[in-house]
């Protein structure tokens, strides 16, 4: 496993995004129940890895991460970037008091954020779309993922308090 093919635009951008995302996470993480915040981070990272190794690699191979189709350390930075997004989905779901009437707006908003982030990653050469894959195809994927995340949070909320009182 190599670090990267050449340390340039995509690696620098990834590191900046990683630092900013985790700074935001550490700014807010104490407001969330300790187990839930770990779960939020893990949920985000898992979703990123699951989709990248399913449609972004293997037989489908619809996009390339960073400089090559091989696993690089820079790819790990990319997967870690998903963690704070998972956490903030949980955090804002609770702070905005999302319920049946606002669920659709919240999910669609996050799906748009997801596509926008993917566009940014493409622009920064972190992701290279291939084999006829178009950015628009990611919208239904994000919709399904964000809906599943919302349903998952509802199940968590039934059992545990998400935000810390204080």
């Amino acid at each position, binding site marked *: *496993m190599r670090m990267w093919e050449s340390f340039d635009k995509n690696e620098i951008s990834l590191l900046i995004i990683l630092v900013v995302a985790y700074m935001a996470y550490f700014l807010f993480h104490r407001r969330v*129940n*300790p*187990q*839930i915040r*770990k*779960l939020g981070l*893990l*949920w985000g*990272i*898992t979703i990123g*890895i*699951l989709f990248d*190794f*399913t449609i972004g*690699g*293997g*037989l489908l191979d619809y996009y390339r991460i960073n400089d090559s189709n*091989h*696993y690089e350390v820079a790819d790990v930075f990319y997967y870690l970037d998903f963690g704070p997004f998972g956490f903030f989905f949980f955090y804002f779901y609770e702070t905005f008091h999302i319920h049946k009437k606002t669920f659709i707006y919240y999910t669609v908003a996050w799906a748009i954020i997801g596509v926008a982030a993917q566009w940014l990653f493409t622009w920064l050469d972190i992701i290279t779309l291939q084999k006829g894959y178009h950015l628009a195809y990611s919208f239904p994927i994000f919709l399904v993922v964000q809906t599943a995340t919302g349903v*998952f949070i509802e*199940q*968590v909320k039934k*059992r*545990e308090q998400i935000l810390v009182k204080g």
Partner: protein
Amino acid sequence: MNKTTSKENTMSKKFGVCAPMGFAFYFFVSWLITVIFTLMKKRLSFIENSFVYLLILIISINFSWIISAELRLVILSKHPLDYTAFMIHRSIGIPFILVVTLNLIKGVSSIGKSLLIAVCSILILVILVKLGAVLDITHRVKWNIINDFIYFAFLHLIALYSLKFFRKSKQSEAISR
């Protein structure tokens, strides 16, 4: 092609297995373990089960990618149905078997029984991945059954200790308040 792979191919021909059979088999295994998990008496909370499942899923995906696409110790079938069967087992079968095992272990009091459950779980996982070779889903170029035993034993240890860490994080927060 090494001796083991050619032997496995002969076995698949002998038993008349084909791509749909491998897909149907792994789909059934994943369905079965999901139903078992849903219906069983759980000793871990919903959040703990989710945490262990997600962590094992990350490891399972990365490990299978590294040994197949990167190191090419195991070659995956290029047949779409066989490949899907592999994905289903990697993403649903393996993590859920670990989660069910952990729930069973937490339900018994003696170390002996816990060890027996873990050994049975490792054996089931090894048999399932070995069947992948028999069904022509995987071709084990430089991979043997000992590696499977070691990997799944480590996976059980990681699941167990990550759960301990996760439970501890709740307790330590409660103390600090």
